[in-house]
C-alpha cells in the first residue's frame, strides 16, 4: 500500500485528537503540557505532509518556527511549573484552584 497524503493527515488528526482529549481530561499540570506538545507536533506533521504534497517549502518553514515556539513555551512553562510546585507542593489542577473559578 502506497502511503500518501491522506495517511499523514489521518495520523495528524488522530494525534491531535489524543492531545485534545489529554488537555480536556488530565488533572496533572505536567501531563497537560505533554498534551499540548502532542497537539503541536500533530500540526507539524500535517504541515510537513502538505508541504511535500505541493512541493512547496513554506509548510516546512512554518513547521520549523512552530518547533521554535514550542521550545520557548516549554522553557517558560516548566519554570512556572517549578514555582507552582514550590508554592503549593502539588501539580494537581484541583489543588491549584486558588481563584475558585
Amino acid at each position, binding site marked *: 500500500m502506497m502511503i500518501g497524503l491522506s495517511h499523514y493527515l489521518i495520523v495528524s488528526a488522530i494525534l491531535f485528537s489524543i492531545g485534545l482529549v489529554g488537555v480536556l481530561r488530565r488533572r496533572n499540570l505536567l501531563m497537560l503540557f505533554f498534551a499540548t506538545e502532542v497537539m503541536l507536533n500533530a500540526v507539524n506533521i500535517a504541515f510537513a505532509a502538505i508541504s511535500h504534497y505541493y*512541493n512547496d517549502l*513554506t509548510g516546512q518553514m512554518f513547521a520549523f518556527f512552530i518547533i521554535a515556539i514550542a521550545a*520557548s*513555551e516549554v522553557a*517558560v512553562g516548566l519554570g512556572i511549573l517549578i514555582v507552582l510546585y514550590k508554592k503549593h507542593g502539588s501539580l494537581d489542577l484541583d489543588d491549584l484552584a486558588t481563584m475558585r473559578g
Partner: protein
Amino acid sequence: MFAAPIFSESVQALYPMHEGVGNAQDVGIVLFTKYLVPFEVAALMLLVAMIAGIILAGKKMDVSLTEDMGADDEIMIVKDEK
C-alpha cells in the same frame, strides 16, 4: 486546513522544491534568504525564553524540594559541632 489539499487544485507553490537538490539544501537556502528576519526574531525569542526559564527556575535554589527543613537543620547542626 485538512480539506485544503483536496479541494484546491489551483494553489501555486510559493517556494518550490528543486529536483536533484537535497531537501535540506533547499530549506537552508530559503531559511537564510526569504525567512532571515523571522529566523532572527525566533532566535531572540528563544534567548528571552531561556533567560525567563533560568530566572523562574533559579529562584530559591538553596531550598531543597525533597528533604524537609528539619533534616536540613540537623545537617547544619552537625556541621557546626565539628
